[in-house]
C-alpha cells in the first residue's frame, strides 16, 4: 500500500548574507499513513515547522524548496497548479497553528469562518453548512454551539479558539492534519483536552496527523512514530516506544535526560546539554551535534553521518519491527550517528567518494 504522504529528500534553502545558501531543512524524508500520528520534535530553529510548511507549499519568502518530492496519495504536490493547490489545502489537508488568535479572522463571525470552507470545498448550501458547523462545534466540545456561531473570535478564550481552529481544520474531513505546536499557547489542563480531541479525530476519521512540538512529553504521549530533528535534519526516527524507551542518538538521549519527569526521583542537578544548537548558516563540518555531544569521537568532526538503521538489534525489537512493517510500511528505527551505528559514517563516506 502507498502511504498517504511521502516526503523524500526535502531541502528548504534560505539565502545567507554572504551570497550563499543555508539548508534550513536538509534532506528530510518520511512517510505518513492514514490514521497514523507522526510527531516531529526539535528545538527552536531545528526546521520542524519549516518542514511542515514546505509540504503544504507555504515556505515563507525568501526561503525556497530547492530539492525533494512530496507525494500526497501518489500525486506530486510540488507540481500542483495554484488552483489545485487551493482546493487541496482545506479539503484534503489542513493545518492547526500555535496561536489561535492570529489564525482566526477577528472581524468575521465564527460561523462564517467554518461554513466558508464547507461551501467552497464541499459545495454545501447555506443551511446545510450551518447545520454541519453546529455539529462540528459540538464535536470539539463547545457548549451552546448554535448561539456561538454568531460570536466573534474575541468572545472565545484561548482553548475555545483552538477548538474552533480544529473544527475549521476538520470541517472537510481532511486526510492529513498538520498541527504545529497546537497546545503550546494553552494551559496544561486545556492542552490535555485538545490532545484528546486530535486523538479522536485520528482514530474516528482515519486522519493522518503530523504533530509538531518542542515538548517530547506531548509528542510521546500522543504519537505512534517520532522524528527527532536537529539543525535541519532528522537525526533519529522510530516508534514512540523506540525513541523513548531505547534512544540511540546522543541528542535524543540528552534531550530525554534533560526533561524533568514527575514520576522520577528529583535529581540534585539536571543533566543538561552544554552549548547551543548551531546558528543559521553556521553548520560545522562533520556532525552538527558534535560540539555538544558527550560521546564525540574524532571522526564526528570530519564525517557527516547518514541516517541509517539503528544497530540496537534486540530480539523483541526485530519482531515488533516486522509486525509493524507489514502494518503500514513503518520503517525501522533510524539514527544519524556514527558512534551509535558505524554504518552512518561508512555510508556517508561512500556518498562523498561517489
Amino acid at each position, binding site marked *: 500500500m502507498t502511504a498517504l504522504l511521502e516526503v523524500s529528500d526535502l531541502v528548504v534553502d534560505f539565502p545567507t548574507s554572504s551570497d550563499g545558501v543555508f539548508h534550513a531543512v536538509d534532506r528530510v524524508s518520511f512517510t505518513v499513513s492514514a490514521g497514523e500520528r507522526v510527531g516531529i520534535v526539535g528545538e527552536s530553529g531545528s526546521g520542524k515547522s519549516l518542514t511542515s510548511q514546505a509540504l503544504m507549499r507555504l515556505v515563507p519568502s525568501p526561503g525556497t524548496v530547492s530539492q525533494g518530492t512530496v507525494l500526497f496519495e501518489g500525486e506530486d504536490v510540488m507540481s500542483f497548479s495554484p488552483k489545485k493547490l487551493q482546493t487541496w489545502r482545506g479539503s484534503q489537508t489542513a493545518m492547526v497553528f500555535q496561536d489561535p488568535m492570529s489564525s482566526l479572522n477577528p472581524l468575521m463571525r465564527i460561523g462564517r469562518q467554518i461554513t466558508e470552507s464547507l461551501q467552497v470545498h464541499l459545495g454545501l448550501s447555506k443551511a446545510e453548512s450551518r447545520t454541519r458547523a453546529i455539529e462540528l462545534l459540538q464535536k470539539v466540545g463547545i457548549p451552546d454551539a448554535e448561539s456561538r456561531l454568531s460570536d466573534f473570535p474575541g468572545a472565545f478564550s484561548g482553548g475555545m479558539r483552538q477548538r474552533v481552529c480544529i473544527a475549521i481544520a476538520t470541517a472537510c474531513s481532511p486526510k492529513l492534519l498538520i498541527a504545529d505546536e497546537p497546545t503550546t499557547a494553552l494551559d496544561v489542563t486545556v492542552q*490535555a483536552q485538545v490532545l484528546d480531541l486530535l486523538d479522536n479525530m485520528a482514530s474516528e476519521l482515519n486522519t493522518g496527523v503530523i504533530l509538531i512540538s518542542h515538548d517530547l512529553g506531548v509528542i*510521546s*504521549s500522543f504519537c505512534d512514530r517520532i522524528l527527532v530533528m536537529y539543525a535541519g535534519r532528522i537525526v533519529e526516527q522510530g516508534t514512540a516506544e523506540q525513541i523513548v524507551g531505547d534512544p540511540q542518538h546522543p541528542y535524543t538521549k540528552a534531550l530525554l535526560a534533560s526533561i524533568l519527569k*514527575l514520576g522520577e526521583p528529583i*535529581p540534585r542537578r539536571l543533566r543538561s546539554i552544554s552549548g547551543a544548537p548551531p546558528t543559521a548558516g553556521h553548520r560545522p563540518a562533520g556532525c552538527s551535534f558534535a560540539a555538544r555531544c558527550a560521546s564525540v569521537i574524532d571522526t564526528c568532526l570530519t564525517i557527516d553521518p547518514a541516517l541509517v538503521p539503528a544497530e540496537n538489534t534486540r530480539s523483541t525489537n526485530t519482531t515488533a519491527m516486522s509486525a509493524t512493517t507489514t502494518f503500514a510500511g513503518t520503517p525501522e528505527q533510524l539514527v544519524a550517528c556514527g558512534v551509535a551505528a558505524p554504518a552512518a559514517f561508512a555510508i556517508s563516506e561512500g556518498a562523498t567518494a561517489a
Partner: protein
Amino acid sequence: MSTSLLEVNDLEVTFRRSAGPGRKAASVPAVRGVSFQLEAGTTLGIAGESGSGKSTIARTLMGINTPSGGSMNLNGEDVTGLKGRRLAEYRQTMQMIFQDPYDSLDPRMTVSQTLLEAIKLRKTNKPVSPMAEVHELLDKVGLSRSFASRKPRELSGGQRQRVSIARALSVDPRLILCDEAVSALDVSVRAQVLNLLKDLQEELGLAYLFISHDLSTLRFMADYVGIMYLGKIVELGTRDEIFDRPQHPYTRALLSAVPEPLVIDRTVRLPRVRLTGEPPSSTNPPSGCSFHPRCPLAQDVCRTVSPAARPTASGQVAACHFADPELVVAEA
C-alpha cells in the same frame, strides 16, 4: 515578630477594566486574599493556569501593581505600597527575572552597559571598580568575559537569560522573583539555566519566588509550592506534600494533565483526571468554591460556601471542603 524574609498577608489586587465595545466597566479581582511566607535561602514555587494571578503577585511585590488590600513585609518591615526613593531602595533587596529575555534587555546596550547601569544605581555598597564587578557577575552566571562587549542580538536565548540573571544579581538582592524565567527556553538550555539558579542559591543564600506553569520544573526548583486558581492559593505545602500527596482536586487534576515522556506502554496509560471546561473568568468568579464548575467532587456545599484554607492531615494547607486523606484512598 516573624523571622521570615518575606511575609505576604491577605494580599488583594483588583484591576479596573474600562468599558469597551460590547462590555461594561468592571472590576477584576486578580488576586483574592493570598498569604504566604518565604524564608531566606529557600524557594517558593507558584503554579497555576494563565489568569490565575501568579504573575500579578510578583508584579505587586515589585511595586509595579498596587495592592488594593493586605500587606507585604520584607525583613519584618512593611513594604506595602512604597513609592519613589523608598521603592527604589526596596527593589535592591528584591529583583525580578522575566520570561522573555528578548524583551527585557535593551537591544542597543551592550552587556556591560546593561550591567553597569544596574551597578551604578546601587545605593549601598558603592562599587569601587565597576568594570571588575561586571566581569565578576559574568563569571557568576557562567559567561566568558568576552560577552561584555556584545549586544543582545548576538546572544542566544539562554545567554540572554544569563545576562538577565547577572543584572538581577548586580544589586546584591536577597530575593529574586522568577516569573516563568525558563519557559521561553529550549529544553536543553532550560536545564543549564535551572542548574545555574540552584548553584547561585547555594552560593549566595538567595531566596526565590519561582513562578511557573510547568509543574515538573517546580518540582525540581521549589522547597514549598503554592497552587493558584482564580486569584487564590488553593493548596500550599512542601514540595513532597504537594507532589506526592496532593489534597486539592485541582492540584490532582493539574498533576495528571502533565504529559509524561516515560509512558512507554501506551496501552496502559494512567487513568487521568480530566478536567472539563476551562478556567472561569476572574471578572465574574463562580459562587462558593471557584473551582466547583470543573470539580469532579463538587457537592451542593461547594456551590454556596467558599472553603477556607485549612491544614490537612498530610501536612499542607488546602482550601477544599473535601480535602481529606481518606477521600484520596477511596477515590483510588
